[in-house]
């Protein structure tokens, strides 16, 4: 028998086009996803050198970062408009398929890839976007790249990459009921910090991971980059195959069975070893809320805001002080006493149909707290349609939420969906960096359930007690 291997090594070995001493490997890229913000300069680069897109059939583009989520045909900002028109023009010129703002497939790039079945186990997938790690949930090797690399892949369908180091992120035990993938990944980053994954590809393993639905797995892999890892993945299993079956770009009938056999063989071998390992107990994980300005500055909802003197390894005393000041928070106060003005349910982390269903369950029959502006932004137009067919839009709007069209929206506030300076937002997105949701905006990352409960109460509450004690 050959040496036991991790899924990471297996995918890598299958994609090496050229190997040379003292050089990274030249690896083949199966799929490149493209969006409007990180691609214009890449297409321009091709044009200047008279190069073409090598494989338009392995390239797929959409518009998400910049698009308005309301009255979407009126784009007020001329520079945004130009950026979208540029993508349109580039896709026409280079014959790249595009789900533009009028297309029913339009949505956040990391939501639509899986939805359309473009994302599949064993593929190498890149996009000029750091949350490309999301696609790892399917057992794909998926990572974010810069615009120069986007251009390189457009022109050659390959990248020079050193083989990655591998890390097993082992999640022991099981999550308690009502604890979500978002709480788990936040707890992992809180425990090991924002740098532990740098230089590695993470594989999430363990019973708690196996229990997760595909959409929850995407939430986990999505935030690998917040741990410093360009890619994070999960070996494919029945959950993966059931999700993929029948999707547009997935093989059908006998070919599907054949694909499943190949995909199953990708899973990490029992005896395989990793370059590193970290472990966490799922049983311990509580609903999480970030209090600071990076995702590791995160505590259980039952906890108090840390004091600078409590500085551990990942954040120094000065960093905590600075974060508290930016966030307008007082040390040692319970995080549940913090009131909010905004709630954002959306982003490539938490805007899929199951996220919206779970949030709607919390909201049903209740009313958004006075003084809170709450919005739901589905991850794709197709998620939006399904949600509407189930009446979720009514649940949200009747409670006082805004119900929007698909896009990145308030996750990075590049369009008009902005949190004003000094105001506070409970957000299901992935980055609580300074200014991320608007200059001076204060972001607290939470799960969709926790965001929904915060919208109703106007402050952070433990969604577990909330679900059992109706108000």
């Amino acid at each position: 028998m050959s040496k036991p291997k991790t899924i990471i090594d297996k995918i890598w070995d299958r994609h090496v086009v050229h190997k040379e001493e003292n050089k990274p490997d030249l690896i083949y890229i199966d799929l490149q996803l493209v969006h409007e913000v990180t691609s214009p300069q890449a297409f321009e680069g091709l044009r200047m050198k008279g190069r073409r897109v090598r494989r338009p059939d392995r390239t797929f583009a959409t518009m998400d970062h910049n698009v308005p989520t309301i009255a979407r045909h009126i784009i007020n900002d001329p520079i945004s408009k130009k950026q979208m028109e540029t993508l349109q023009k580039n896709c026409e010129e280079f014959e790249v398929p595009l789900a533009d703002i009028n297309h029913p497939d339009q949505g956040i790039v990391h939501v639509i890839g899986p939805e359309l079945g473009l994302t599949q186990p064993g593929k190498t997938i890149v996009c000029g976007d750091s949350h490309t790690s999301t696609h790892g949930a399917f057992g794909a090797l998926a990572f974010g790249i810069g615009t120069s690399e986007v251009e390189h892949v457009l022109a050659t369908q390959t990248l020079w990459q050193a083989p990655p180091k591998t890390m097993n992120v082992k999640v022991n035990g099981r999550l308690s009921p009502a604890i979500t993938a978002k709480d788990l990944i936040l707890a992992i980053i809180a425990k090991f910090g924002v740098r532990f994954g740098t230089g590695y590809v993470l594989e999430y393993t363990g019973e708690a991971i196996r229990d997760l639905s595909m959409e929850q797995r995407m939430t986990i892999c999505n935030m690998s980059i917040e741990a410093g890892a360009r890619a994070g993945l999960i070996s494919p299993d029945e959950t993966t195959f059931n999700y993929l079956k029948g999707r547009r770009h997935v093989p059908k009938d006998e070919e599907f069975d054949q694909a499943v056999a190949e995909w199953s063989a990708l899973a990490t071998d029992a005896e395989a070893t990793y370059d590193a390992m970290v472990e966490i107990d799922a049983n311990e994980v509580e609903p999480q809320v970030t209090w600071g300005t990076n995702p590791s500055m995160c505590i259980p909802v039952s906890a108090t805001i840390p004091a600078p003197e409590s500085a551990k390894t990942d954040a120094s005393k000065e960093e905590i002080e600075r974060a508290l000041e930016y966030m307008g928070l007082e040390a040692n106060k319970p995080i549940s006493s913090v009131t909010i003005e905004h709630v954002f349910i959306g982003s490539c982390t938490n805007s899929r149909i199951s996220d919206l269903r779970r949030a709607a369950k919390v909201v049903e029959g209740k009313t958004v707290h006075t003084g809170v502006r709450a919005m739901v932004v589905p991850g794709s137009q197709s998620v939006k349609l399904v949600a509407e067919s189930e009446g979720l839009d009514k649940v949200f709007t009747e409670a006082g939420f805004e119900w929007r069209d698909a896009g990145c929206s308030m996750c990075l506030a590049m369009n008009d969906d902005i949190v004003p300076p000094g105001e506070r937002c409970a957000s299901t997105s992935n980055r609580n960096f300074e200014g991320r949701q608007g200059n001076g905006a204060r972001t607290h990352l939470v799960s969709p359930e926790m965001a929904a409960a915060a919208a109703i109460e106007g402050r952070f509450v433990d969604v577990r007690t909330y679900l059992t004690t109706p108000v």
Partner: protein
Amino acid sequence: MEPIRKHKGLVYPINRSNIDTDQIIPKQFLKRIERQGFGQFLFYNWRFDDDGNERSDFSLNDTKYDGASILVAGENFGCGSSREHAPWALQDYGFKVIIASSFADIFYNNCVKNGILPIQLTEEQTSELVKKAEGEPFTLSVDLENQVVFDDAGFEASFEIINYLREMLLNGWDEIAVTLTHEDKISTFENTKA
């Protein structure tokens, strides 16, 4: 891409860790479709107040750092978003070398692809450089061929960089052109395995 072999320049220190690309170039400036002209927006929210006036409490606005071409920072520099606008902004502002005690992976690559030299030193070394540069105007020399950084007062540190990236920086390669010399292999791969 401009080759870089040796460089001597004024050092700008920024004594923070986890400086993310949202800070290096905030999202409102990512809408431009050109590669040039991002320097004016570098560290925008730290450099300017809400009315667009320079903030006196941010050191890059201090005239003693005018013309700085080497930036020194703490750990995990360039984390977060993959936006290449971050190295474009740094380069357009005038930075040619970034020294940090560690870098985020995507940012590191993005620097090299644009001819910016990212240098990883130990935390001790970056702290020493930060301290020196916070005082009198401080210049540093970088020699990529010999993989060493030094000043006129006895500081010297060697650094690692993988050979391929070093060659690329030294020669200012067009990486796509290099790759296309392997066109036959890519085609064979596509015909047999992809």
